[in-house]
C-alpha cells in the first residue's frame, strides 16, 4: 500500500528518528537525547511528541521494539530499524536532499 504524504513536520521527525536509529538500537529517551545533541539543541521538540511518532513508525513496520535491560539494569523498551525501515530512510533522505537543495537554490537565486 502506498504511504500517504506526511506533512513536513511529521515527516521530518520521522526522518530524524529513522536516521538516529540507523546508528544503533536505542530507547526513547536515548533518541531524544541524541536528536538534541546532534542538532546542537536547535531541534528542541517536546520530548513526549517523540512517542506517537515511534508508535506510528512501528505500525508502518519501519521500526520494531523489544523490552530489554538498559546499562543501569533497568527495563527499557528498545527500538530498532527494520529492513524496510532502512529502505524508507534511504528514500526519505534522498527526497529530503532534493527538496532542501531545491529550496536552497530558490533562496539563493530568487
Amino acid at each position, binding site marked *: 500500500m502506498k504511504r500517504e504524504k506526511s506533512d513536513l513536520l511529521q515527516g521530518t521527525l520521522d526522518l530524524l528518528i529513522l536516521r538516529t536509529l540507523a546508528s544503533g538500537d536505542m530507547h526513547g*529517551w536515548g533518541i531524544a537525547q541524541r536528536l538534541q545533541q546532534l542538532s546542537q539543541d536547535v531541534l528542541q521538540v517536546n520530548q*513526549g*511528541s517523540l512517542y*506517537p511518532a515511534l*508508535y506510528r513508525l512501528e*505500525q508502518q*513496520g519501519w521500526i520494531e521494539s523489544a*523490552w530489554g535491560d538498559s546499562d543501569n539494569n*533497568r527495563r527499557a*523498551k528498545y527500538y530498532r530499524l527494520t529492513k524496510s525501515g532502512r529502505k524508507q530512510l534511504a528514500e526519505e533522505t534522498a527526497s529530503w536532499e532534493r527538496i532542501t537543495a531545491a529550496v536552497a537554490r530558490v533562496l539563493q537565486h530568487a
Partner: protein
Amino acid sequence: MSMTSVLRRLRGSLRSSDFESSMEAEMRHHLELEIEALIARGMNPGEAADAARRRFGSVAQVKDDCRDSWGLRAIDAIRQDVRYAARSLAKYPVYTAVVLLTLALGIGANTAIFSVVHAVLLRPLPYTHGDRLVEVRQQAPRIGVANAGVSVKEIQDYRAQTPTLDTIVEYHQMSFNLLGRGEATRVQTGVVSPEFFDVLGVKPMLGRTFRTDDDSPGAPAVLLVSHSFWQNALGGDPGIVGRAFEMNDRVHTVVGVLPPIPQFPAENDVYMPPSACPFRSNPQTIANRQARMLTAIGRLRPDASLDRVQNDLAVVSDRLNHTYPADYDAAHTGFHAAAASVRDELTRDARPTLLILLATTGFVLLLVAANVANLALARVLGRQRELAVRTALGAGRGRIARQLLTESTMLAVAGGALGLGCGYLVRDLLVGFTSRFTPRADEISIDGTVLAFTLGVSVFTGLLFGLLPAVTRRTASATEAGHRTVGTARMGARNALIVAQVAISFVLLVGAGLLVRSFIKLQQVDGGFRTDRVITMVVSLDFVKYNTANARRAFFKSVLDKVEAEPGVQAAALGITVPLDQQQPFLAGLTIEGQSLGDRSARPQVDIKFASPAYFQTIGMTLLSGRLFTAADDAAAPAVAIVNLSMARHFFPDTDPVGRRVSFDNGRTWMTIVGMVNDTRDYALDAKPTDEIYRAFAQTAPLNATLLVRAASDPSVFARRIPDVVHEVDARQPVSRIQTLEAVRSRSLAPPRLTALLVTLFAAVALVITAAGIAGVVSFLVNQRTTEIGVRMALGAPRSSVVRMILGQGLGPVAAGLVLGIGGALMLTRVVTRLLFAVEPTDPPTYVAVAITLAVVAALACLAPARRAATIDPMRALRSE
C-alpha cells in the same frame, strides 16, 4: 495497510491492557532517565522532576496520541459505548436485574434443549460411517409383527444376496453368569459377529476387538469388556486383558476393553463372538430357519441409497418366500424385509418430544424478547428527556440508536452467559430425561456448536429487543419530549407486543394442558393388575448345572416354598415376565383343535406367559371363567393353559374357551384351556392388550424365571431378604432386576410425565413473563396518564370508572391476543398429537381452562396498577406537571 500491520493492530487491540501498561512503563522510564540527567547537571530533585515533565509535555495527551497512532480509536469508541451502557444500566438496577433474569431463563432453556437436540438429532452417530448403518428387519404386518428378528440362515441369505450392503453383521443379547470374582454376577452379554466392531468403526481402548478366527469352531472363548463394566465392576484394572473368567462352564479370556461410546443396539457388560454363545452355536439353532433370535446390522455401500437397499431386500425376501413358503407365507403374514436407518431408530422415540420442546423453548424466547423489548421501550420513553438532551447536544440519531443497541446486546449477552450457566447446571437432569427416549443421552454436552448457538441466540435476542426501541425512537423529537405525551406509535407497538405475548402464551399453555390431561388419563388407565405391595425379581439359572427340566423344576419349587413360608409374604408366584417391564411379546404360533387354518399356512401368533398357581392372585388379576392353576397341575398332570379375554374374544368368539385344546407344536402335544382371566396391558399402558395365553409354570422348565411377591406391608424390605432365600437354595445362582411393581409402572410412565412436566414448566414461565409484561404496560400507561386521570377525577369522575378505564385499556390487547392464540393453538397443537393419549389436540375443556386462566392472570396483572390509578390525588397529579 499491510497484512502484518493489520495483525499487529489486532494483536494490539486484543491485548490492549498489555499495550497500556507497556506504554505507561516506557514513559515512566523516560521521565526517570530525564530526571536523573537533570540532577546530574546540578538541579535538585524537585526542580528536575518539574523540568522533566515540562519537557515531556502532557502525558495524557501523549498517551492519547500514541493510542491513535496504534489504531485503538475505533475500539475505544465501542469501549466508550460499552462503558456508557454499563453506567446507565447500573443506574436502573431493578430493570437490569429483571431483564437479565428473564433473558437467562429464556436463553438458558434454549441452550439446554438445543444441547439435547444437537447431541441426539443433529450430530452424526459416533461410529465411523454411522449414517450408513441400517438394521435389516423382517416384518409381518398382517399378523402384527413389526420386527420378527432374523435367523442364522436368513442372515446368510441376506449377506449373499444384497449387493448394496457392504456387509451384514449379527447381534443378539443374552444374560450369562460370570464367575471368577467372588459371587456369581449376571452379565448382559452382546453376542456379535467378529467384524461387528470393525463395521461400527470402534477401536478398542485396551487389547483388541474380535478376529475372524475367534469365531471358528473350537476356538478358545474370548470376551470384550465394555468401558463401564470395566470401570464399575472390574475396578478399571489396567491388566485386565488376558484375565480369565468362568462363564457357561468354560474359561473365557478377556482380549480387550471397549472405549466409552454409546453402545448399540443396547448396553452390554461384555461381548462374545457367536461361537462362544451356547444357544447361538447350537447346530439346531443354526439349522432352524425360524430361530429368529438375531438382529442384523448392515452397512450401505458408499454409492448406495436407502431406497436401493429397500429394493434389494424386497427382492431377497420375495425369493425366500418363494423358496420356503411354509416358513414365510407372505400372502397371509405380509412378510417382507426392509431396512431401517440405525440413526433414525436410535432417535425415533426422542424426536417428536425433543422437537416439541425445542419449539416450546423457542416460543419462550420470543416471549422473553417481547417482554424485554417492552421494558426497554418503557425505559426509552422514561429517558426521553435524557435522549432529547443528547440529541440536542449533537449526538446523531445513529449514535443514539447504536447506544441503545449496545445496551440491549450487552444485556442479552450477559443474560446468555447466565443462561449458559443454567444450561450447565441442568445437564445431568437432561441426560436423565433424555435417556428415557434414546441411548444417545450420554452424548449431551455443551460443546462449541452449543456455545455458538447460545451466542447467536443471545445476540439475535439483543438485536430483536434493542431494535424496536431504537426504531420507534425516530418518532420522538426533542420538542416532543419536552411535553409529557405518549407517542401513539409507541403505545401501538407496546400493545402489539402484549397481543403477541398473550397469543404465544395461549399456545404454550394449551400444549402443556393437553400433555397434562393426556398424562392424567394415562395414569388412570387400569392396567388389569394391581401394583401395590408387589416386589419382583429375576432368578437366572446356570444351564450347565441345571441341565435337566427336573433339576430346574425342583430348584424353583423349593425357592417358591421357602418364599411363601417367609413371614410377611401374603402371596408368592413364579412367572416369566413382569407386566410393563418388557418391550416385546414372546410370540408363538397357535393351533386350535377343531379349527382348520383354512387356506393359510402360517399359524396365528399369541403371546405366551408362564404362571404358577398364585400368580393371578399375587398381581390382583381376575378369573372370568373356569379355574386357575392348582398345585395339581404339575409336570405329570395333563397340560393346561389359561387365556386372557382378548385371546378368547379373538379365537373363540361367542363361545366359552374353557375346555378347548390348543397346541404350540403344530398338534404334536395339546394343552387344555381351563380358565379365562382379564386382559393386562403388559407392554405399555397406552397400548391395546395383546392376545395372551398362560401355561402352568410347573409344566414348563425355563432357565430364567420372575419371582413375584405380594407383601403384607412395605414390599421393599424383601429386596434383600428374598435373594437370601434364593441363595439358601443355591448360593451360586444370581438374582437381578429387583424392583417393586409400583416402580416398574412409574418408570413406564416417566417419559410422558417428564415431557408434560417440562412443557408445563416452560408454559408457566411464559405465563409469568406475560403477566409481568401486561402489568408493566398498564402501570406505564397509568404513569403517562397521571395528569389526565387527575383532571378527570378533579372533574368528578368516580374512582371505579378510573379503574374500569385502565382495565379496559389493559385488557383490550389481552382479548385480541386470546383470539389470536386460539387460532394459533388450533393450528400448532396438532404437532403434539403423537404424544397424546385419549385426548384430542382440540380438546375443548383444555382450551376453555387455558383461556380462563390467562384472562384471570391478565386481569390480576392489570388490577394493581389500575387501583394505583384510582388512588391518584388529583391535586398532586396536576401540580406534578
